[in-house]
């Protein structure tokens, strides 16, 4: 039993999944079930003048804004998205009403006969136009040191601009949800990351008391942020339908509907002005981050926060002036996606440092290393780096593994190598963790211990890791540790399954609780021990000034990517990724490796082949034929390893890991491409067309 916690064990959920016996929501059976189909806006911005319904056969229903028992807004950070459209629509795909009934063919036929008259209004699609017309949702600022003065005294000023595109999550299981009333209590079942977000949305919209709503997470076929806030909307749809029809109601999206209307990664533009002193050092940055939030703001403010708090990445820049804005456009709302705003800014600053180094004739890695953060340095928001920063060790390891300098010297044109350095702030931003104050319960019944947490298994391995933490602490077999069903009626709110917080925050609470249980183990046959999260005392944060410790601790890493470009077709092949990470202490190496490889693959997709574009407010990509994600042929050999750097407040020293690998891969690939063409790469995705253009411009 005294084995290292990092030593891999078999995942507790894999056999059922391999056998095909895991029940996702679309596999559930209900008696007298009705199906639901959403009728959506086909206009990007319009007044709804009239809705004309065909004759509705008995047993079928049309449900719209007039059927909402409570508030017709989806509860989230900014509760501005209507559950059903009222007098106007703001994007193509916005839900107007749903058709419900026992037969899908008839539902589709009814839906196709509904006539909606619109009066079109002036639209707004691009970030450029949004900036011009200043349709700002959120405008954030923060400052560090004396940037004005630093800019005045600079020897050299360099300006640069970067941009990134949409990304679709493509969780393999599309959105799916169902609702039913049992003895006056509403039950909602579905594929989701955050059962209590869904519950809070239902509280507002259904106007039911707290004890009359239960949200049950079903086996979830991938999420990556795409099932963070979005299921709150569909949950309200089916709940309202179940309320009106007195039947269970299920809604499963097909892939094209899912792509049309679910949230995406925010397209971004990041502008930097760098002040450089006589020693070639970057002494000040002026940073302007803008995100396309889409038609409703929703969760975008917090995405923007992580984006701007990550905009200096692993570098210590004494003077900063940072602005971040979310813009409204008439397009599908953007939302949570693995990395949460950080991939956009970290790609940008990595390329900025590369571009500056090339301009100054300094080796890019050496140049980056001159600016590295160290323990006790101030963070960009004036907090402190409290932990040992092991980047020098990480870098040494990754350049050794990849033979970086040798290849850098001998590479011919169209062959490139690039290195990215990166961090990820663990857990919620700012005061987030103290506000939520996640609660957990451990229950002992003879020799069986039950974990009651709201963190969900969505593929990332949470169930295995959390059970392992408890089993290792209590020194009992993992089979004797079980998870309570994720049902808001049976578990406390330990917070949502987001922000790479599950292992470190919830796992940390479980570890402390299990230690306490261990002391009292022989005192009682049946025992409940519970705990709520308390932010460590050493952390300070001012939410109005954005000053202090934006995160309790960071995970760190470096990636080296090798690429080859076909000189005729400009097809890009990523040949290898070497990766080294400091995630504190791995809780389970194989599970973690799964997160790393999957995160890198998604990052590569975003950086290279995943193209999603708007044309007059309509997404040009509507299915997986147009929107390509990496296949087994696209993912290179990935070599990853970890260095140990235990975090005092993490379970067994663990920090965060789920988003970190996504953040690191895109800049490594982009730098390798820049190195191969000897041209800057300031935009993602890097498509062959763009490469051809870049290579041929002077």
């Amino acid at each position, binding site marked *: 039993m005294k084995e290292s916690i990092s030593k*891999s064990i*078999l*995942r507790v*959920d*894999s*056999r*059922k*999944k*391999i*056998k*095909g*016996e*895991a*029940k*996702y929501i*679309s*596999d559930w059976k209900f008696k007298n079930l009705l199906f639901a189909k959403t009728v959506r806006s086909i206009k990007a911005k319009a007044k709804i003048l009239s809705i004309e319904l065909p004759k509705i056969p008995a047993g079928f229903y049309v449900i719209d804004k007039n059927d909402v028992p409570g508030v017709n807004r989806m509860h989230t950070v900014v509760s501005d998205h209507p559950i059903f459209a009222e007098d106007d629509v703001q994007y193509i795909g916005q839900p107007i009403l749903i058709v419900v009934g026992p037969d899908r063919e008839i539902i589709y036929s009814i839906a196709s006969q509904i006539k909606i008259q619109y009066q079109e209004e002036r639209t707004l699609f691009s970030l450029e136009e949004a900036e011009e017309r200043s349709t700002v949702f959120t405008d954030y600022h923060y400052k560090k040191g004396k940037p004005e003065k630093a800019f005045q005294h600079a020897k050299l000023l360099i300006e640069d601009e970067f941009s990134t595109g949409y990304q679709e*999550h*493509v*969780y*393999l*299981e*599309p959105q799916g949800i169902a609702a039913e009333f049992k003895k006056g209590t509403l039950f909602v079942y579905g594929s989701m990351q955050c059962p209590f977000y869904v519950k809070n949305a239902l509280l507002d919209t259904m106007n039911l008391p707290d004890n009359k709503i239960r949200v049950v997470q079903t*086996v*979830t*076929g*991938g*999420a*990556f942020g795409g099932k963070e806030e979005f299921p709150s909307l569909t949950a309200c749809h089916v709940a309202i339908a179940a309320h009106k029809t007195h039947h269970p109601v299920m809604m499963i999206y*097909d*892939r094209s509907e899912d792509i049309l209307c679910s949230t995406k990664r925010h397209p971004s533009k990041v502008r930097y002005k760098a002040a450089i002193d006589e020693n070639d050092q970057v002494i000040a940055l002026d940073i302007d981050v803008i995100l396309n939030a889409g038609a409703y703001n929703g969760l975008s403010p917090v995405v923007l926060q992580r984006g701007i708090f990550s905009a200096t990445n692993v570098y210590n820049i004494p003077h900063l002036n940072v602005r971040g804005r979310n813009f409204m456009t008439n397009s599908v709302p953007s939302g949570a996606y693995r990395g949460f705003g950080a991939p956009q800014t970290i790609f940008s600053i990595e390329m900025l440092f590369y571009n500056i180094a090339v301009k100054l004739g300094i080796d890019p890695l050496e140049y980056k290393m001159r600016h590295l953060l160290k323990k006790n340095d101030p963070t960009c928001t004036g907090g402190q780096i409290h932990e040992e920063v092991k980047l020098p060790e990480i870098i040494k390891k990754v350049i050794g593994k990849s033979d970086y300098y040798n290849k850098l010297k001998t590479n011919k044109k169209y062959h490139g190598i690039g290195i990215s350095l990166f961090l990820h702030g663990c857990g919620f931003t700012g005061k987030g963790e103290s506000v939520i104050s996640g609660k957990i319960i451990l229950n002992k019944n003879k020799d069986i211990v039950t974990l009651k947490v709201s963190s969900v298994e*969505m*593929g*990332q*391995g949470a169930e295995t890791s959390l059970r392992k933490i408890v089993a290792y602490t209590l020194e009992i077999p993992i089979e004797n540790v079980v998870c309570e069903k994720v049902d808001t009626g049976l578990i406390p709110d330990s917070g949502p399954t987001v922000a790479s917080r599950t292992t470190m925050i919830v796992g940390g609470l479980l570890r402390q609780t299990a230690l306490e249980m261990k002391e009292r183990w022989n005192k009682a046959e049946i025992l409940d021990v519970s705990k709520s999260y308390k932010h460590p005392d050493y952390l300070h944060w001012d939410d109005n000034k954005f000053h202090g410790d934006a995160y309790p601790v960071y995970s760190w890493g470096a990636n080296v990517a090798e690429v080859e470009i076909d000189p005729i077709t400009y097809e890009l092949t990523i040949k290898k990724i070497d990766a080294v990470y400091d995630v504190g202490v791995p809780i389970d190496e*194989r*599970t973690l*490796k*799964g997160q790393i*490889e*999957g*995160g*890198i*693959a*998604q990052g590569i997709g975003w950086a290279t082949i995943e193209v999603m574009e708007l044309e007059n407010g309509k997404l040009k990509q509507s*299915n*997986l*034929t147009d929107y390509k*994600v*990496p*296949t*087994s*042929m696209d*993912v290179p*050999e*990935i070599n990853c390893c970890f260095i140990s750097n235990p975090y005092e407040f993490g379970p067994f020293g663990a920090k965060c890991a789920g988003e970190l690998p996504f953040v690191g891969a895109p800049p490594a690939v982009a730098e390798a491409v820049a190195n191969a063409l000897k041209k800057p790469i300031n935009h993602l995705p890097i498509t062959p067309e763009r490469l051809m253009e870049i290579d041929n411009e002077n």
Partner: protein
Amino acid sequence: MKIEFYLNNEKKKIDIEASIRLLDVLREDFGLTSVKEGCGEGECGACVVLVNGKAMNSCMIPAGSIIGKSIVTLEGYKNTDRYKAIETGFMEAGSVQCGFCTPGFVMATESLLNQNPNPTDEEIKEGLSGNLCRCTGYNMIIQGVRLAIRKGAGLW
């Protein structure tokens, strides 16, 4: 239309519209929910079943075209020794995360090894390139197949 076919080695007769997708017939008429719908357009492989021993996307097959054919889903396949080897390989290599793609990968692996019991890594990648997985990045699935080949030596 009356259709006769073999499902997991049993003779079945149904009366159904010829244009209905095999995917729906399997899931709805026979309750075989290991067959998943990830895209409905032949791109993801979550709905793969064996048709006369070969992996095919059941979302692209109209029921009318399966007359007389043998269809095998994971529900039938999971009782075989070959399946056991794949299960062990996938478990030990960490080939499974969310699991939604997994049944499709199991069936595609069977089809691949049936045709080529000793594939190279390149051949495995190619053989599985019709199946999407968004969680793993594939390398750990390929290692799972490798392990399955070792555990199931002589079975294919």
